[in-house]
């Protein structure tokens, strides 16, 4: 058994404890502890890369405490590692390393707790990605949450962080407790906590009402964490106030983790039993579209740079959900690459914003207009990252979006172009206005100005030179986004990983019966991953749209027809009514969202007649029996797959 798997989670935890223990003892040599923390995060990233490559040939299962399942009943906890889960965890480790390197000189007075909290946050993410046990998933979800709450309120001197952290903590806690209720519910019927075992137990008979309710409750916490409309309100508050290195992690990987959780829970546990794949796909597609459009519109309207990047993350979360909701290997592969590309690019954008905050002391776009000219390198990196966000061809974001569009069909292309151009346009507007002084001085929105002015610099600011440790990480991240986008056979590797992720019967055989499956069964035919002309056209279209939107935003006073346009007070007021900052509203929206989703699910699955799942797919329960358990040789799954 591969001993790397537990170390990947335990090493950051041990180093976090060591950093806290030696903090008071090593008052003088503070930098030693920071270095140790950064090296630990880097080591985790390297280990995860090794694991990802090694699992390409076949999933790896690791049973803690040596308690292996006996004839289908698991009594311990297991790690079930697939390339997609290891890849997401690796992205998280890379971003944590970059964020901690960035904060080497960023914070004036770094208490020892910052590194410890970042490392436990990383451990929570890695544990969440790799675990194969449903309650373990909740425990790591909670560890990641508590670390995030403490990191959001890391600067209690300011007013904003406390209020943002409160909203974040209360909303996500309610989500976590609903997820736990869902886990308890499904445990009541199947008596199992291991995902594969639950999947097999639940797949034996068509989905009854308990499975539907349990599925929705379990993904309730995950929907809130992945900021899907109408559960997304907390994200903008938490983002706008968290310290910049922390925002890198919130946007780069924490939101995507919620979506990974939904995909994992759907495919490994509930997918087979729920059946009605087309209906469920349509429900989540609608949610994804709604989130993508809402995020993009709010992003373009926002003048507070961090809050704008937060809304662009919401918009992209919607696009990832669209990719996953297509339920095809190509869609999932596209979402995976899009997540990695977006994570790198968004992290670079946040780090550059951190540099602006460090040097100029504000994130209020109107006030910063033209003041960013001396920050030449930061300006270049920010603009490149903005183009990446707008899906410029060489970037990984373009590759991912291309596959999603190829898998969904032509109807999705205009929607994604509009969303990308709005989100990219907002970022390019900031790039043009702040770093190059293009366009006219924008009018001050008093309300947002007060909010952005609140964000005093996290350090004394006003330094004349950007320290190297602050400019190198974003540059490396942008280059990495381009390199990943250009790798040749990436498509084949990620698509095979996506097929493996969606193969439920293979997952059960691997976990419960120790089979080593090298050729997972594709539920629906894998699509072409070559970059086609339409992809390039779509990518260029969205970049062009972004440039046009940025130009319009910067020069709208001079354009004849737009001169009369005043940003209507009603639009701002209505937006303010929704994004009210009152946590009571957010919980109400959570309840409304869940009630509606519950109604839709109940209607779709129960009333539409319980189509026996067997006709949809290869029944996972029966396949296990004839796939002769404990077969040492890779079990050849010779079963015809029915196209969706």
């Amino acid at each position: 058994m591969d001993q790397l798997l537990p170390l990947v989670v335990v090493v950051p935890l041990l180093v976090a404890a060591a950093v806290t223990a030696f903090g008071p003892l090593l008052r003088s040599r503070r930098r030693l502890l920071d270095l140790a923390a950064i090296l630990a995060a880097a080591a985790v990233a390297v280990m995860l890369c090794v694991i990802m490559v090694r699992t390409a040939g076949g999933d790896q299962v690791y049973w803690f405490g040596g308690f292996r399942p006996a004839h289908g009943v698991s009594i311990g906890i297991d790690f079930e590692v697939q390339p997609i889960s290891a890849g997401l965890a690796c992205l998280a480790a890379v971003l944590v390393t970059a964020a901690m390197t960035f904060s080497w000189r960023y914070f004036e007075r770094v208490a020892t707790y910052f590194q410890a909290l970042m490392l436990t946050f990383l451990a929570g993410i890695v544990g969440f990605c790799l675990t194969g046990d449903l309650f373990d998933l909740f425990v790591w979800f909670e560890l990641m949450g508590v670390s995030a709450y403490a990191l959001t309120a890391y600067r209690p001197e300011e007013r904003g962080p406390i209020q943002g952290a409160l909203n974040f903590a209360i909303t996500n806690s309610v989500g976590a407790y609903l997820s736990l209720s869902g886990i308890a519910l499904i445990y009541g019927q199947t008596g199992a906590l291991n995902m594969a075992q639950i999947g097999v137990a639940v797949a034996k008979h068509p989905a009854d009402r308990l499975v539907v309710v349990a599925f929705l409750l379990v993904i309730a916490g995950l929907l809130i964490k992945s900021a899907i409309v109408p559960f997304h309100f907390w994200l903008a508050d938490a983002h706008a106030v968290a310290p910049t290195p922390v925002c890198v992690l919130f946007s780069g990987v924490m939101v995507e983790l919620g979506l990974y959780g939904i995909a994992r829970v759907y495919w490994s546990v509930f997918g087979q039993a729920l059946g009605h794949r087309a209906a469920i796909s349509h429900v989540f597609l609608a949610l994804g579209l709604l989130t993508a459009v809402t995020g993009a519109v709010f992003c373009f309207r926002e003048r507070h740079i961090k809050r704008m990047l937060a809304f662009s993350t919401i918009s992209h979360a919607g696009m990832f959900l669209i990719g996953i909701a297509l339920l095809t290997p190509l869609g999932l592969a596209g979402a995976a690459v899009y997540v990695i590309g977006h994570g790198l690019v968004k992290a670079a954008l946040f780090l550059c914003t951190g540099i602006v905050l460090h040097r100029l002391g504000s994130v209020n776009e109107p006030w910063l207009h033209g003041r960013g000219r001396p920050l030449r390198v930061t300006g270049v990196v920010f603009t490149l990252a903005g183009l990446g966000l707008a899906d410029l061809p060489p970037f990984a974001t373009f590759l991912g979006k291309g596959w999603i569009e190829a898998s969904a069909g032509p109807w999705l292309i205009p929607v994604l172009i509009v969303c990308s151009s709005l989100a990219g346009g907002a970022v390019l507007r900031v790039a043009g206005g702040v770093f190059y002084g293009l366009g006219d001085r924008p009018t001050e929105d008093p309300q947002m100005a007060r909010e952005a002015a609140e964000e005093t610099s996290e350090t004394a600011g006003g330094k004349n030179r950007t320290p190297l440790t602050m400019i190198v990480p974003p540059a490396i991240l942008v280059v990495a986004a381009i390199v990943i986008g250009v790798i040749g056979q990436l498509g084949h590797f990620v698509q095979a990983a996506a097929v493996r992720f969606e193969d439920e019967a293979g997952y059960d055989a691997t976990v419960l019966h120790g089979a080593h499956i090298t050729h997972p069964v594709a539920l629906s035919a894998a699509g072409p991953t070559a970059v086609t002309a339409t992809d390039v056209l779509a990518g260029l279209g969205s970049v062009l749209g972004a440039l046009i939107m940025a130009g319009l935003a910067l020069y709208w006073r001079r354009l004849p027809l737009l001169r009369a346009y005043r940003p209507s007070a009603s639009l701002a007021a209505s937006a303010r009514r929704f994004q009210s900052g009152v946590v009571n509203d957010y919980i109400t929206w959570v309840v409304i969202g869940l009630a509606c989703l519950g109604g839709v699910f109940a209607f779709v699955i129960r009333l539409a007649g319980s189509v026996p799942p067997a006709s949809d797919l290869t029944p996972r329960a029966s396949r296990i029996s004839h796939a002769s358990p404990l077969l040492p040789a890779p079990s050849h799954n010779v079963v015809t797959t029915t196209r969706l």
Partner: protein
Amino acid sequence: MQVFPFIVVAWILAVGLYGVVTSRHLVHQIICLIVVQSSTYVLLLGVGYVTGAVAPYFFDVPNHTPAVDPVVQACALTDVVVEAAVTALLLSFAIQAYKRFGTLDPQELAALKG
């Protein structure tokens, strides 16, 4: 009796959520969050109960006496400690919010923050 415990679970969840939504005082809201979480304990232990079985401790009862499910109790134990941790953190946020804003009403907090 088959269903009554689960009706109580749904009632506690509903009351807890009502408290969180209509609360005008942060500490009151955090306490209602504790009530929401306590509904998960009752559900967990209710799901694992076996009629006529003893507690899963065999120091004075023969080994293979039919016992209640110990796994849910381990999960509930983990959950109680998680509750204490999250509540302590939320209360420290509430203290800081009071020192910064001078009020504990979420409505005014949002207004003051701008």
